[in-house]
């Protein structure tokens, strides 16, 4: 398949035509044309996000409530167990995850909107692969969610997390992987759902339990047996844990505090390394992306 585009065919102007007609030709489908389609679907997500400032603000409200209100409010109760570390600092990595997660899910929800408002059809009838639409959507949602994550990263100073370049780079990378995986997850669900209300319902049923079980708000060691099992099964656990590890690496606190607050996720006593955790998020994201593509290609 050639990737060269044909030159413009400027037709002879008929005497009646006031101006010459710009005729274009739709080329055969190529790898490059698919990339172009992915890019424009991705860009559309950014355009829409930028024009929707209310969404930028509202999706930050809940995480910030958790961080500053819950974090400050429960400080008195928790101070006995935090070895002098502020609760806000402790829950900060988890809050970053939830901020990214909310935005990613909302971005994925736009597929449901697009279906309801008809725009999805415009993309479905274009001479492109369905997978290009899904990939573009996922990358767009991930970008938008990462942007939201960056806002939370900027707030690190308020909860006494130092602005260390390595720390910022580490959590920025991790939250990007998370943003991608969650968007893929959301798109996978959204492809099958026809109405916005149903999607919101599913989201509430999935996102909140994932958040609470993940250990975003508590250390993952010494949990009751049932919760420990659920915690190890929750994918979000493997995003919160490495982020917390990176943050705690840059805090000057006692080893006892470190041990109590950042015990790390372990499987049968084996501490799961950071790279494996990150790898799991990537793999899960790719798996869900594939399912989303497959689902999307089989719907009419």
């Amino acid at each position, binding site marked *: 398949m050639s990737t060269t585009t044909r030159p413009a065919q400027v037709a002879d102007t008929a005497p009646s035509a006031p101006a010459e007609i710009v005729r274009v030709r739709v*080329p055969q489908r190529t790898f490059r044309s698919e990339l172009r389609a992915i890019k424009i679907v991705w860009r559309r997500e950014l355009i829409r996000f930028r024009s929707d400032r209310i969404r930028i603000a509202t999706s930050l409200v809940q995480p910030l409530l958790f961080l500053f209100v819950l974090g400050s409010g429960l400080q008195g109760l928790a101070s006995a167990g935090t070895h002098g570390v502020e609760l806000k600092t402790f829950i900060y990595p988890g809050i970053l995850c939830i901020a990214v997660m909310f935005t990613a899910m909302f971005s994925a929800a736009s597929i449901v909107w697009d279906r309801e408002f008809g725009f999805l059809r415009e993309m479905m009838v274009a001479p492109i692969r369905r997978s290009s639409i899904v990939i573009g959507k996922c990358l767009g949602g991930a970008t938008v969610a990462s942007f939201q994550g960056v806002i939370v990263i900027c707030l690190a100073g308020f909860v006494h997390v130092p602005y260390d370049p390595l720390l910022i780079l580490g959590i920025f990378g991790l939250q990007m992987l998370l943003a991608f995986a969650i968007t893929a997850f959301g798109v996978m669900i959204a492809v099958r759902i026809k109405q916005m209300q149903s999607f919101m319902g599913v989201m509430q049923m999935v996102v909140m339990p994932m958040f609470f079980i993940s250990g975003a708000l508590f250390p993952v060691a010494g949990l009751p047996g049932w919760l420990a099992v659920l915690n190890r099964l929750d994918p979000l656990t493997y995003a919160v844990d490495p982020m917390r590890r990176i943050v705690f690496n840059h805090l000057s606190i006692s080893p006892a505090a470190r041990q109590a607050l950042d015990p790390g996720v372990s499987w049968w006593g084996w501490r799961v390394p950071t790279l494996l955790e990150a790898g799991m998020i990537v793999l899960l994201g790719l798996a869900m992306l594939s399912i989303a593509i497959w689902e999307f290609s089989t719907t009419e």
Partner: protein
Amino acid sequence: MSATTSDGATVPAIAVHDLVKSFGEVRAVRGVQFEVAPGEVFGFLGPNGAGKTTTINMLCTLVTPTSGEARVAGHDVVRERDDVRRNIGLVFQDPTLDGYMTAAQNLQLHAELYGVQSDLVRPRMRQVMEMVGLWDRKDSIVGTFSGGMRRRLEIARGLMHSPRVLFLDEPTIGLDPQTRRSIWTYIRELQEREEITIFMTTHYMDEAEWCDRIAIMDQGQIVALDPPETLKAEVGRDRVTIHTDDNEAAIAALEQRFGIEARIAEGAVAFGVPSGEEFVPRLFAELGMPIRSVSVSRPTLDDVFMSHTGTTIRDAEEDQSKHRNRVMMQMMTGGRR
């Protein structure tokens, strides 16, 4: 620039053979067959639920036919789906614009999806937007557009990639008469300038007059297919209405002098003749009584539809909605028990 095969022979813009689509028990399209020549404006006319949209969806590769064959711009709609899609433009019955983006962004996105050469996107965009009179609104958010402007923008977008066949599914539904008229002007102008084939559906009788040929569809089948004039000529008779001082005497005189059977309709004497305009001078000369006023009307497509289906399009739709209401009532009352 008409559609040609590799050996150079002209092929029809659309060729449909025995096309059938069933949704479970319901046979929405029951074996339709027709050809549309390149450059033609072809209309599908029929009440809601006649199978027009299903047919258009099959031609646009959105719905797979149950059986039969259809080729658009020389390509099979099932086996060469991408080739068909590259060559067609679509304007759907329901809006498919992104209301959060500007008009230009919507068109840009379309051009990117279709792989239009980057350096031609801008000039082409300008051309199609000028054609529908929206170039000065290109940077407005589509959400602020009126229904007529959106429809015009959709038509412009459908043309962005210079399709050979443009499908318009009820392009003027829900618009006021003035906007409908202007959209039709655009469509005809477009057809002349771009030498494009236009396939459209409508259930407005008066709009079908704009088409080169019309297929009348009823209950999943084509019941008539010809240019509007031919269809109307088949119905034949013009309708003449006269006002006189004595209607009874006029009816008797018509019977006596011309052998015409007239009747009183809405306070006037009405009758049908093959050619109304030629008949009027004779009427004045030979009727032998004063006539206060006379009017001649040609048969309308309503008459055509009536003669082929035995019902007016409005009645056909009312029957359907009555049926729908009945089914809904049954479901509701059944659900309460």
